[in-house]
């Protein structure tokens, strides 16, 4: 127990990230299922408007910040050091800190579901209810008087710290901890996409930090940054949020694209087609991703010039994304494809992401978006890219790397059931949303008129959502089975080409008995240019010392939610107490003898 609390081992932190994020995924999914249950028929099943607003806000926030980002982080943590031939990340304690901050931030946000009585709210739940992008000026004290929005803004502030810390850590890890010979253009594609993602994180998160700070001043100290009554402009919030928010969606998709770029070559027994192009297109996507934010604001009246510019830049992103897709197909082409579950999910990713990407292009056309924005058509788009894209990609990663992470094989039979249920379920759930949207159903409504004519589509969506729910339970069962009915995994069960497969499953604490010297991009494969790398010695030639654990990251992290609780309750001493805890933690950390 203590060893888990103080751990700085990237592998353990990776597993902590995984289980925490997976739990939040179930919670976010449960929220989605209640949403879908309410929408199963026009007048609903009795979920109140207030509860419904909390549900979709927490669903979006949870899925984005507490499920998808940290699930990717689970792989960053576990896999990246192995792929680059390192013993750990560059800053193991900072890594632990990121995890604890993430966990506590997530708990803080979700505590709002039961914190009502503390605020005399007259109901149990005071969860955030202004939507995951919290548009001003609905978030002002005047229109949202309760603590709901406070939970949201403080929670996101905390989570931002976790992401930023991890961002710096992984940038340095990937650049600086590579094994000898692991040149940049020999990095596995997953590592590359992670690197790009981290650059997006460290540039995009400061912007939302500022937006949240300004909002905090508006709510706590009576300023008018986003309030027209004092000369402020709610549109500024939208700009700041989406300047973060759009890069954020690429933060969510790029790691999944990286995973797919690992899985396809392994299971078609061919190198990734156009490796350099795939890498550079990732860079281009990230770069362009910074220039398109106002496509979320076409209806806000930016004027025709800005609309045209942002429509144009948005469309450009289709090019590097398309390039990736064609290269993936090129990888499959001429291969010897083994239909493992991981491969099915990777192919499912491509198939579904195309649909989401194409609906994205119809959004990118500003005029047509005027009919689509804020309808279920957008909801369809985001779930094809986020679920059909990111989630399917992450599942591919889970089936691919679970043996490495735990030393246990997942059942392929259950995996296939999981895959097909998920694929069919998600299409039933999300495809009809295109239609209900175009037929006039706005998003974020807890009830709709039977006259709209969309009841049938909603029924199908709900059925599909529950199918996905069942599929997720199948997967959960599959995970648990690896504990209860273990089947041990060999070091390289899939015949993968990258370094993580050169060491036992699960890897020993020190990862590599000897740091390998890398001579090419696919070290474990026989290709026409080179043979597989010589196996590493079974035991380390000399004793390897790994750094011990540390309490300080967790102590420092604990300070943050304490400060947030103080702010929530408008009780300064608690804020100060939290600050003291954090400062003590930082000093303890700084002066602790801890060497890598």
């Amino acid at each position, binding site marked *: 127990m203590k060893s888990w609390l103080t751990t700085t081992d990237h592998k353990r932190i990776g597993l902590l990230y995984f289980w925490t994020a997976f739990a939040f995924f179930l919670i976010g999914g449960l929220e989605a299922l209640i949403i879908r249950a309410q929408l199963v028929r026009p007048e609903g099943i009795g979920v109140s408007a207030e509860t419904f607003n909390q549900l979709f806000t927490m669903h979006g926030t949870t899925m984005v910040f507490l499920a998808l980002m940290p699930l990717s982080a689970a792989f960053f943590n576990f896999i990246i050091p192995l792929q680059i031939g390192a013993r750990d990340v560059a800053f193991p304690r900072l890594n632990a800190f990121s995890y604890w901050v993430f966990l506590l931030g997530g708990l803080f946000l979700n505590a709002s579901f039961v914190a009502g009585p503390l605020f005399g709210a007259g109901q149990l739940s005071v969860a955030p209810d202004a939507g995951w992008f919290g*548009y001003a000026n609905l978030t002002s004290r005047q229109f949202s008087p309760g603590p709901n929005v406070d939970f949201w803004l403080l929670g996101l502030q905390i989570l931002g710290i976790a992401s930023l810390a991890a961002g710096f850590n992984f940038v340095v890890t990937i650049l600086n901890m590579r094994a000898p010979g692991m040149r940049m253009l020999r990095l596995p594609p997953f590592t590359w996409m992670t690197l790009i993602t981290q650059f997006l994180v460290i540039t995009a998160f400061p912007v939302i930090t500022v937006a949240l700070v300004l909002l905090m001043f508006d709510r706590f100290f009576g300023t008018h940054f986003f309030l027209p009554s004092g000369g402020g402009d709610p549109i500024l919030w939208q700009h700041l949020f989406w300047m973060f928010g759009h890069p954020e969606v690429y933060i969510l998709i790029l790691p999944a694209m990286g995973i797919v770029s690992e899985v396809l070559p392994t299971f078609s027994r061919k190198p990734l087609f156009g490796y350099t192009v795939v890498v550079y297109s990732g860079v281009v996507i990230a770069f362009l991703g910074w220039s398109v934010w106002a496509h979320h604001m076409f209806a806000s009246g930016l004027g025709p010039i800005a609309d045209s510019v942002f429509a144009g830049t948005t469309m450009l992103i289709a090019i590097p994304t398309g390039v990736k897709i064609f290269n993936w197909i090129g990888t499959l082409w001429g291969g010897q494809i083994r*239909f493992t579950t991981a491969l099915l999910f990777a192919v499912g990713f491509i198939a579904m992401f195309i649909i989401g990407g194409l609906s994205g292009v119809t959004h990118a056309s500003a005029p047509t978006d005027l009919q689509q924005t804020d309808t279920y058509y957008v909801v369809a788009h985001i779930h094809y890219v986020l679920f059909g894209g990111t989630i399917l990609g992450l599942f591919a990663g889970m089936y691919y790397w679970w043996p490495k992470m735990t030393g246990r094989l997942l059942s*392929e039979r259950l995996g296939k059931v999981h895959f097909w249920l998920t694929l069919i379920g998600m299409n039933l759930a999300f495809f009809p949303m295109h239609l209900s949207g175009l037929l006039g159903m706005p998003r974020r409504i807890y009830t709709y008129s039977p006259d709209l004519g969309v009841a049938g589509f909603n029924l199908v969506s709900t059925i599909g959502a529950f199918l996905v729910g069942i599929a997720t339970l199948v997967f959960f069962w599959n995970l648990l089975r690896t504990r209860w009915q273990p089947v041990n995994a060999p070091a390289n069960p899939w015949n993968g080409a990258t370094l993580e497969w050169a060491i036992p499953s699960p890897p020993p604490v020190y990862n590599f008995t000897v740091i390998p010297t890398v001579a090419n991009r696919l070290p474990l494969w026989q290709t026409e240019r080179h043979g597989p790398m010589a196996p590493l010695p079974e035991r380390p030639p000399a004793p390897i010392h790994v750094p011990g654990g540390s309490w300080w990251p967790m102590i420092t992290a604990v300070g943050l939610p304490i400060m947030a609780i103080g702010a929530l309750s408008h009780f300064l001493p608690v804020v100060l107490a939290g600050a003291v805890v954090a400062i003590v933690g930082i000093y303890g950390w700084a002066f602790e003898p801890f060497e890598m």
Partner: protein
Amino acid sequence: MLRDPVYFDAVPLALVSLVLLLLTACGGGHYPQSVFHAEADFSRELDGLFRNIFAWAVGVFVVVEALLLVAIARFRARPGGPEPKPVHGHTALEIGWTLAPALILVFIAVPTMRTIFDTAGHAPEGALRVEVIGHQWWWEYRYPTLDISTANELHIPAGMPIQVEMTSADVIHSFWIPRLAGKRDLIQGRTNRIAFRTDSTGEYWGQCAEFCGASHANMRLRVIAQSDSVFQRWVDRQRAAPVTPAKGSVEETGQQIFRRSACIGCHTITGIANAKVGPDLSHVGGRGTIAGALFPNTTESLHRWISNAPSLKPGALMPPQSLQGADLDAVVAYLQSLK
């Protein structure tokens, strides 16, 4: 594992069910808020553009998905199959599949830009100006040139260009009547514009499209496009002073009760009350619906609305009123008389 027939059955199965879904949407049925049934210049232009882009998207979809399916069907591993050739890439292909999408995008971008400028919101000379002000959770309409102020139901003359200027009294809302026009947000402190012209008379439905709090779902809107003469009659009635109830009638009692009640703190009835928190009631009896086009304007719904609005419409900013029995009947009768 590879012979497993399930793959090759499930894919077509899923596709067929999707197509079936599509058909149900396009064929038949009555969809008051469908974007596919454009009945004004603005919406028609958007619809045309969408169909254009959609066609490209379908083309891309079919080609790319087909390639993907062919790849996985053709290159399944066969026991004892040859070791695949380790191809690392192909420069000509890379250039090709960079340029092809770029070219397609040109065909999407050019009409997009044109439509952006076409629909930038400025109506031709002589358009009827309407100001829309969003409130949590109802719509206020003003016709500055006609000196009319009303709520929740927008009357317009069919065939005449309409210049809509919008802003909000509180949070952001979005004005959307799919058959007539694309959305535009109502933002406090800003003025946004759209312009459109309907083809024909009729009733058009829409609703608020920007999340605006508890009753966002209940912020519907109704547009009534009328022939010139009918519209003119409507204008005349709106500009007339509110009906004065006959002496001794139940309506007169209602008026007195209205005067004595909290109502005057929030509502306007020209000559009786002058407050701006809620909708102008000077001609409320002539409206087909009340409360953000949510309920038909019947005796029953007025009763229920006045006694306890928030129970009908979550969060409604009209508190429950203590009027009861005969008093309530009288007020309702009075309001209904205000044609």
